[in-house]
């Protein structure tokens, strides 16, 4: 059975995945919003790439977080949009130092191989063919969460389910962490596991197709 994002995050954690959905279609925004909410995500839905950049603070305005400081964990964008296409938005995000780590998923009603290839080459996590289904979203949640997209200032959000099951006490983890000095803490959901270490440990334990991501970052 596929897990919703909330199942994988530590119990008691009020931190759901925050997804930024970009689509110029009113109908599609409503549907994707529902798909994501049902999968226990926070959703911000905007109608254009420009709005998305505004929200992220990438349009020249100060601040690298969204308006109310909510970090974005995943961006899902339609490909064909007037003005800035999803592809152009993808490039802008992947070329920004602040946001390149955020996984970007492209959605398109057109299953064009060259299009898919160029998106993946620019660093898109996945290319979903519309109409997007619940099973697509659920699979995305699992993949994104497993890849530790919640590193950094969201320390304590254990995203690798396997690790979480193994990890009963923070003491065992801090002894195994090499570089980052993590202060000992109670085994609560907000225990800092040391973002950097957690990420590096996760990268090494990622499933094979994660190498695709690593390759794109090297090329930047």
């Amino acid at each position, binding site marked *: 059975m596929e897990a919703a994002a909330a199942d994988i995050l530590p119990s008691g954690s009020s931190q759901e995945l925050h997804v930024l959905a970009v689509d110029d*279609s009113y*109908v599609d925004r409503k*549907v994707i919003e529902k*798909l994501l909410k*049902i999968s226990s995500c926070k959703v911000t839905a905007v109608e254009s790439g420009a709005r998305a950049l505004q929200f992220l603070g990438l349009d020249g305005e100060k601040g690298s977080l969204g308006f109310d400081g909510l970090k974005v964990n995943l961006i899902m964008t339609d490909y064909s949009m*007037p003005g800035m296409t999803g592809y152009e938005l993808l490039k802008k995000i992947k070329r920004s130092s602040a946001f390149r780590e955020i996984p970007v998923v492209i959605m398109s009603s057109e299953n064009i191989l060259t299009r898919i290839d160029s998106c993946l080459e620019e660093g898109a996590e996945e290319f979903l063919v*519309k*109409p997007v289904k619940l099973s697509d979203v659920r699979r995305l949640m699992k993949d994104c969460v497993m890849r530790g997209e919640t590193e950094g200032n969201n320390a304590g959000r254990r995203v690798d389910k396997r690790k979480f099951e193994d990890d009963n006490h923070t003491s065992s983890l801090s002894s195994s962490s090499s570089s980052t000095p993590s202060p000992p803490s109670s085994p609560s959901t907000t225990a800092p596991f040391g973002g950097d270490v957690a990420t590096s440990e996760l990268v090494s334990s990622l499933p094979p197709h994660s190498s695709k991501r690593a390759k794109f970052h090297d090329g930047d």
Partner: protein
Amino acid sequence: MDLVQLQRQLVDYRTSLYHEGFLDEQFTQLQELQDENNPDFVVEVVSLFFEDSERLLNELSNALEQQIIDFKRMDARVHQLKGSSSSIGAQRVRQLCIVFRNYCEAQNVEGCLKCLPQVKHEYSIVKTKLESMFQLEQQILNAGGSVPV
């Protein structure tokens, strides 16, 4: 008509919409997304589709009435209509949009002129059918019953 009869009528009606190709499995997806927290979800999304479609169809009519036809702009509109009909499972409308797009790409005025009324026709049929279905559902709810899935 009593509750059980109403419910059976709804199921039969809905099944016929699938059989006759008016709706496809994407509509089922939408229904699966509806829950107690959002009991009007399907109606809301479909209403958005109606609004969107009517706007697009008007714009397409206008575009075809111009001296110089902007096929690119038309194609963009048809693409949008194809997208939203696909998202709610309005299969026949979606399929006609594919044909329409081909005519736009080929800059075939006659083809477009022939296709647009067909799209409008299919749209108005599916709109009527969906509205009837929603009315049936409302009748069931008013009779104190629940809508069968």
